[in-house]
């Protein structure tokens, strides 16, 4: 057991993946000497060389496009997108090529490419550095989308993502990069497509992923003081969703709130709400509520505390869901 930050857990996970398979490459802007702006790739170039840890030209479409080509040649590239807001120049390569080429080839081509995206707000950054673009990818068939929320998962999930033969978009909660936990090297985690009951609860189920898991756990603890038993599910996998775990929880509580940083409108919360409602219709005491970002571009950082779901907003939703 070693105490690691989430960033360091990812770093160790990547290191293990590169040790295990010489075809694994890391590529992106500033991933080499600098070790990435969040130091997730720190030291990897020094240890694995410039052929396996590639500082690329500054162009995201080029990063994903050449990663696809490398994958076609048998490599397993792990691409870093420097910040959430900079994934869009690569949208075409991700959506029309990475996601669709395996089907296009009737399974003859596989593209084990991982696209790592530090995501979310709460770090006081300038524009484009605090976004949550997961819905653009969960809506794109052919991609797997996952989000880690803590160092233990980060360590195993990144390795599982690298081992996965499908393309995986891997979200990392940047404001949790410095959160610490004890990580056991070599220990396996939950399968990549399974959700985790982060906290059981009888009265209401909070569904979250990435940075909001911690916030939800805090809200659950606060609610307990008011005598409410609030469960929290950490989805981990955003596409596919682990509906059995979600269903079980909601069937028990009859009340459900989805929490994410992305704008609510047409966000993943809508999908979850619609599915939960269809699958647990007779058990629901209230509509599934959603707490998330507003339908505005991510605001300047002096306003982000208002924009982001926090304890108060979650607890307010808990109150509301009991109002039905």
């Amino acid at each position, binding site marked *: 057991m070693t105490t690691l930050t989430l960033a360091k857990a990812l770093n160790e996970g990547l290191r293990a993946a590169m040790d295990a398979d010489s075809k694994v490459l890391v590529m992106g802007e500033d991933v080499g000497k600098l070790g990435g702006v969040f130091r997730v790739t720190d030291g990897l170039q020094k240890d694995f060389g410039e052929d396996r840890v590639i500082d690329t*030209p500054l162009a995201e479409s080029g990063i994903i496009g050449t990663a696809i080509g490398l994958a076609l040649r048998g490599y397993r590239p792990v691409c870093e997108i420097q910040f959430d807001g900079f994934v869009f120049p690569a949208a075409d390569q991700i959506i029309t090529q990475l996601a669709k080429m395996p089907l296009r080839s009737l399974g003859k081509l596989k593209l084990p490419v991982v696209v790592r995206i530090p995501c979310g707000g709460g770090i006081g950054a300038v524009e484009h550095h605090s976004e949550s673009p997961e819905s653009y990818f969960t809506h794109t068939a052919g991609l797997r989308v996952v989000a880690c929320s803590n160092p233990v998962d980060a360590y195993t999930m990144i390795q599982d993502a690298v081992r996965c033969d499908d393309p995986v978009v891997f979200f990392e909660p940047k404001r949790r990069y410095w959160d610490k936990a004890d990580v056991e090297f070599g220990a396996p985690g939950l399968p990549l497509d399974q959700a985790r009951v982060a906290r059981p609860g009888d009265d209401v189920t909070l569904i979250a992923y990435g940075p909001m898991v911690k916030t939800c756990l805090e809200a659950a603890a606060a609610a307990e003081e008011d005598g409410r038993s609030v469960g929290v599910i950490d989805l981990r996998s955003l596409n596919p969703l682990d509906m059995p775990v979600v269903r079980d929880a909601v069937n028990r509580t009859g009340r459900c709130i989805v929490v994410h940083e992305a704008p609510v409108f047409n966000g993943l919360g809508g999908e979850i709400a619609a599915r939960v409602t269809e699958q647990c219709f007779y058990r629901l005491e209230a509509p599934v509520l959603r707490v998330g970002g507003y339908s505005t571009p991510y605001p300047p950082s002096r306003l982000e505390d208002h924009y982001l779901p926090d304890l108060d907003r979650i607890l307010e939703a808990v109150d509301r869901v009991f109002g039905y």
Partner: protein
Amino acid sequence: MTAPTTPPELVQLLTPEGERVEHPDYDIDLTAEEVRALYRDLVLVRRVDLEAVALQRQGELGLWASLLGQEAAQVGSGRAMTDADMAFPTYREHGVAWCRGVDPLHLLGLFRGVNHGGWDPYEHNFHLYTIVIGSQTLHAVGYAMGIQRDGAEAASLVYFGDGATSQGDVNEAFIWASVFNAPVVFFCQNNQWAISEPLEKQTKIPLYKRASGFGFPGIRVDGNDVFACLAVTRAALRNAREGNGPTLVEAFTYRMGAHTTSDDPTRYRVADELEAWKLKDPIERVKAYLFRSQLADQEFFDKIEAEAEQLGKDLRARCLALPDPQPTAMFDHVYVEPHALIDEEREQFTTYLSGFEGAQ
């Protein structure tokens, strides 16, 4: 052989009249058999194309993108590759597919809507058709970076059109290839048109010059001259394999037909242009050369003609016999590993379908 008659910037080894000419930097020694083989490729490839157009007219294909006029560019470059090289085509490289040994039936399958690409790219080292303009150039560069890492003797050869040169991806591919010195040859078929847009909507200067700004050589070749296309591409590929980095080859040619069977070129181009280019037909000049140099006789041409006819007939029959995919096939291969959502939807769909059984 005589001195070249075209502007020096255009590499030409065979004139439209079928005369062999010299070029200071590029030449090629072809046996009679090789020339005849090239001629055969050109004729058969055109025949496949013709049959496909006919099939589309008769409603058997949803669409077809004809290569008419571009046979030499495709066969010349296609035959320049070794088995180890990897080709990345657009949607029009039927001639390259032929050279790589891909059964034309697979091409028809795609345009018939049976699948999005039915061949095994690794079997022929011929990647799937890419429809999103320019995307494949980056794949080719990435693949070439893989070749570098493998220490293999091979190169990527990537096809794209004049219109594609305007896409960001293509220019990023130039940058990547240059910076990483990747073993890739960029083969641009400048057929003068991007659907209805003439070349001047994409560039003010000859396209082959684009490469110079990225720090690697560009060269313009007569795209209707199969010898020149072969010689120039072969040299560029060898150069790439030897670690000397990328080359941009601009094959100066002409799209003799419509953009696709959905297009109506009379809306935007004049007939004269087509007539002028007909005089530069890529097949006629090889035929003239074979005749003139007595490398082939009428019997040979008749034989090829007959082979072409048979090929067309067979292809038609096999196309009509192409089975539609099973309905549930749309769920296959979306993911390589099990995926709960796909499984759920496949099951719902199967249940739904079974509701119709026995009905009506």
